[in-house]
């Protein structure tokens, strides 16, 4: 929806000059006086009892200030690492601490830590720590964890299954009993992770005399981190300052709260000095949360006309050897969203959380949705094939058409799914893909077109519902809009700037609403001492809808005050005034104006005769926005792919996304978010996998091993926008930061299948690497 003005304008990002000229400041740039650097000794083995940890030689090394073991860290803190999401109340949540205390449950788990004069000396000291492990059999895979005689990860819990629940709606048993067609499939999603260019880092200063904790932290959620520090360290929130400078990417895994930052605090308190702890790339592959890994069994019941009447099955979340802050919730989202954009009356999805000796499971762009999308889009294609119908007919028949719509869990506020599908098909038509495919086939090449349709819950979320859903954090957002004495505007936000352009987006909303030029607005974030409170931080695609809505409401109230003051000065009724480019004019009376600078002066400095008697000085409004519902974005992805039949190599020739995230604040930012998400979808579908060997040890330790797509593998991505505003969100904004990654996998795989009609492929495991695709093709033809 084009509302005119700066909302919807494709303006350059205000962050970019700083970022592109090397003037950004990241956590590793922080150098406090007297600062020490720390390193963590990580277990090479997946499963073991710690017999002893001898740190005496490390402690004696010149340049070393402190060495702490897991037991010492446990003794120095108030409680275990928090699990923010506890979606199953009676699930077993193992109490784990920042470092392993007496048992190792995953390779990479921290055992001890050193603070030294620099990182090199800290790493020297790690080599002098003598740990004796009594190795236990590794429980590295889902199958190993579920085996009847499986070794148990936790002595205090009788099974590696930590919890079970179900998401149910309607009468699934009846739907399956009455179905004309029942289809089933089993899916395997691999371990993958977000890999921001900047790894995680912390600089902690715990003043031993005042007991104040000052932390620089790579976090997407400063207020959640602040609360977690308070909980773990036993400090009041008010004594904890969390500062977040520029983030070099987040992708969800910087949403989670890690033991490493607690270790830095403990080391700082012990030494009385600031302690920097920067995760290096090699350790990031074991120390930053992993995601995606699931097994999903699914059955679909349908009528002969293509109406899907029920779904049932089981999501196995392959968790790690400890729970991250996200707990099992990404896997719960998969189960809760497996019906996607379709109006399916009955659902019976089981959810099983299984612990393995792997890195903890956590947040990654898309959360549970890429898996859910892959499942429903696979089943739609399968049903189409079974019934001999075009897959888009199945989609159209089953699309949700009436809004708001109560899905198995969420209420979808609005959507125009058929129009979005049509928009995507029009883009494919305009790009001439059918002709390209036809020509390719004529010369014997394997070229195919694949589609997926997605919807996506964004803008988390209603705070009271989050409490009932098992979140220990709320979903509201607070922003402050201030006009200063020169008439310039400052927006204060608790959201984190991680490269996504949130400063630009919020500045556009403020400038648009107040009627001032964009470069008169500054956005400040990243300091819990001065930033407003963000209940959930920068995750769950909520920055634009919640931050945007709060800024818009605050700026609207502030504008009313500006107009009252201006009306007083101009001797005109506020409703007769208009603000354009920072100048307030009386409608229809040329020349009778005051500037925003005049209003600022009247509110802060020379009040007499200009600020109305009943107005308080200053120009500032604070808005706490707690949404009544989530906002549902949606989109359709189309992929043109070529398969090399001899090598199994898949080359993406084209990538189109038709997308709707309500009112768009900045189409260029939305495009960029969708492009970045698409790149992660491509990696997730074709190459990325964290590999454990047969002994349960981690093999993927560098980017030579973890195969991210490079520029050569990512085709140009074209976006078609449409806008169905979220009526319940001031401004109508919906989130879109995760959209690009959700539908990519299914569309890519559907394109591969379409490119190779002679093989009748069914691809249900990712990533589909060249060797795997070739093997599948040969299995299909019995070669």
């Amino acid at each position, binding site marked *: 929806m084009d509302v005119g003005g700066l909302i919807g304008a494709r303006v350059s990002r205000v962050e970019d000059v700083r970022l592109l000229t090397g003037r950004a400041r990241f956590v590793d740039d922080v150098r406090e006086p007297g600062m020490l650097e720390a390193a963590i000794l990580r277990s090479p083995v997946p499963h073991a009892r710690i017999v002893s940890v001898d740190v005496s030689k490390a402690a004696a090394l010149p340049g070393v200030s402190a060495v702490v073991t897991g037991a010492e860290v446990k003794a120095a803190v108030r409680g275990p690492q928090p699990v923010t999401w506890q979606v199953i109340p009676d699930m077993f949540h193992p109490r784990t601490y920042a470092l392993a205390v007496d048992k190792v449950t995953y390779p990479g788990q921290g055992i001890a830590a050193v603070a030294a004069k620099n990182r090199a000396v800290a790493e*020297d000291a790690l080599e002098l720590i003598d740990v004796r492990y009594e190795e236990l059999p590794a429980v590295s895979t889902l199958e190993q964890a579920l085996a009847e005689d499986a070794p148990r990860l936790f002595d205090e819990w009788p099974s590696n299954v930590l919890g079970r629940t179900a998401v149910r709606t309607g009468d699934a048993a009846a739907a399956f009993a009455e179905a004309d067609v029942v289809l089933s499939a089993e899916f395997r999603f691999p371990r993958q992770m977000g890999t921001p260019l900047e790894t995680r880092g912390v600089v902690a200063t715990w003043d031993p005399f005042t007991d104040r904790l000052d932390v620089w932290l790579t976090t997407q959620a400063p207020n959640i981190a602040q609360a977690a520090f308070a909980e773990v360290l036993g400090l009041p929130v008010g004594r904890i300052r969390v500062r977040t400078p520029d983030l070099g990417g987040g992708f969800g895994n910087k949403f989670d709260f890690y033991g490493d930052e607690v270790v830095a605090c403990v080391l700082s308190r012990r030494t009385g000095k600031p302690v920097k702890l920067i995760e290096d790339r090699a350790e990031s592959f074991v120390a930053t949360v992993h995601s995606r890994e699931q097994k999903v069994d699914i059955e679909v019941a349908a009528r002969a006309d293509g109406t899907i009447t029920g779904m049932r099955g089981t999501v196995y979340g392959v968790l790690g050897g400890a729970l991250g802050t996200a707990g099992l919730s990404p896997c719960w989202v998969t189960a809760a969203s497996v019906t996607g954009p379709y109006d399916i009356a009955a659902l019976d999805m089981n959810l099983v959380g299984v612990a393995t000796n792997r890195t903890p499971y956590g947040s990654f762009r898309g959360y549970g949705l890429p898996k859910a999308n892959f499942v429903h889009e696979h089943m739609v294609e399968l049903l189409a094939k079974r019934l001999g119908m075009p897959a888009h007919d199945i989609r159209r028949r089953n699309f949700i058409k009436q809004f708001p719509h109560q899905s198995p869990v969420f209420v979808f506020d609005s959507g125009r799914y058929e129009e979005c599908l049509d928009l995507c098909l029009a883009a494919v038509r305009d790009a001439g893909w059918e002709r390209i495919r036809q020509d390719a086939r004529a010369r014997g090449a394997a070229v195919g077109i694949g589609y997926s349709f997605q919807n996506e819950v964004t803008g988390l979320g209603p705070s009271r519902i989050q409490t009932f859903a098992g979140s220990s954090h709320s979903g509201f957002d607070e922003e402050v809009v201030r006009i200063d004495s020169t008439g310039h505007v400052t927006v204060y936000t608790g959201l984190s700037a991680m490269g996504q352009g949130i400063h630009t987006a919020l500045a556009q909303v403020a400038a648009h609403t107040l009627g001032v030029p964009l470069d008169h607005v500054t956005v400040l974030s990243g300091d819990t001492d001065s930033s407003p409170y963000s209940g959930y931080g920068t995750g769950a695609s909520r920055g634009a809808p919640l931050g945007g809505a709060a800024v818009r409401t605050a700026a609207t109230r502030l504008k009313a005050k500006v107009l009252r003051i201006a009306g007083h000065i101009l001797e005109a009724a506020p409703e007769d005034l208009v603000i354009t480019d920072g100048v307030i004019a009386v409608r229809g009376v040329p020349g009778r104006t005051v500037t925003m600078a005049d209003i600022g002066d009247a509110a802060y400095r020379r009040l007499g005769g200009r600020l109305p008697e009943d107005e308080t000085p200053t120009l500032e409004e604070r808005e706490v926005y707690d949404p009544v519902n989530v906002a549902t974005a949606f989109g359709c992805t189309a992929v043109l792919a070529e398969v090399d039949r001899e090598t199994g190599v898949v080359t993406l020739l084209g990538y189109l996304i038709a997308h709707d995230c309500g009112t768009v604040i900045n189409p260029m930012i939305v495009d960029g978010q969708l492009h970045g998400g698409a790149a992660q979808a491509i990696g997730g579908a074709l*190459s990325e996998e964290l590999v454990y060997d047969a002994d349960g040890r981690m093999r993927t330790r560098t980017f*030579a091993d973890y195969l991210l797509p490079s520029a*050569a593998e990512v085709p140009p991505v074209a976006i078609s926008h449409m806008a169905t505003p979220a009526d319940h969100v001031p401004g109508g904004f919906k989130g879109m930061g995760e959209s690009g990654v959700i539908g990519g996998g299914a569309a890519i795989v559907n394109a591969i299948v379409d490119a190779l009609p002679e093989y009748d492929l069914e691809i249900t495991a990712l990533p589909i690497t060249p060797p795997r695709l*070739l093997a599948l093709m040969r299995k299909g033809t019995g070669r």
Partner: protein
Amino acid sequence: MKAAAFEYLRAASCDEAVAALAGEDTAVLAGGQSLVPLLNMRLARPRLVVDINRLADLSYLRRDNGNVVIGALTRHRAAETSAMVATDLPLLAAALRYVGHVSTRNRGTVGGSLAHADPSAELPTVAVALDASIRVQGSHGVRDIAAPDFFVGPHETALAPGELLVSVSFPVVPGAVSVQELPFRGCDLVVVAAVAVEDGICAQARIAVGGAGPTPIRASAVEEALIGRPVTDAVIAAAVAEFTCDPPDSLHAPASYRREMASVLTRRAIGTAVHT
């Protein structure tokens, strides 16, 4: 990922470098594209790092008696963009474009790639294909080692302690060239081919496969099966069938796939070269 402590010497002359390298546990720092990550991951823990970046007389490209001689310190990018290399060593020019990316090639050196002896790296594979001669200098003076003898195993060479690789001499061979890799890094193979065709008959062929064994493999049987025969698809296919290798599994590709791809890429390299 910080290096363990080491001593550092910035050599002012080749002789000084060689003298320093005669000690125990030394490493040569040239472009640093392989050594520095190894140091940082503590996979290499030399006592002494000898920096040869100031040895300007090791950076050159020159013609010499039907060969192109390249100084060890010559940056990849200098060789890649050299008109002489483009004319006389098109296979090297083509292969260099597959080495890392431009900023890697601005730092990385020709001698460094050879001495690092990654079995799937482009430069060693080209050296084996062309039967290059590698010159090393030690306290005894200089000696020349034929490329097939220079590469001993993965990251292992015939360099003796105290020797410094100073130059490599590539013979100029006729023919069109092709370098083939899969756009899938998990496969980790490279095939290089230079094939000369006269009147439809293969006159000369130089083919090597990197990544399919502990060192790059010269596909001699394939070359022999091509030379003197018309370069038809059938002849090429039959020649490639002569190629055998026993590559290990890689993290993302089983040995069977890598073996098969070595043949596919070899066939494509020959086909592309002869159709150029």
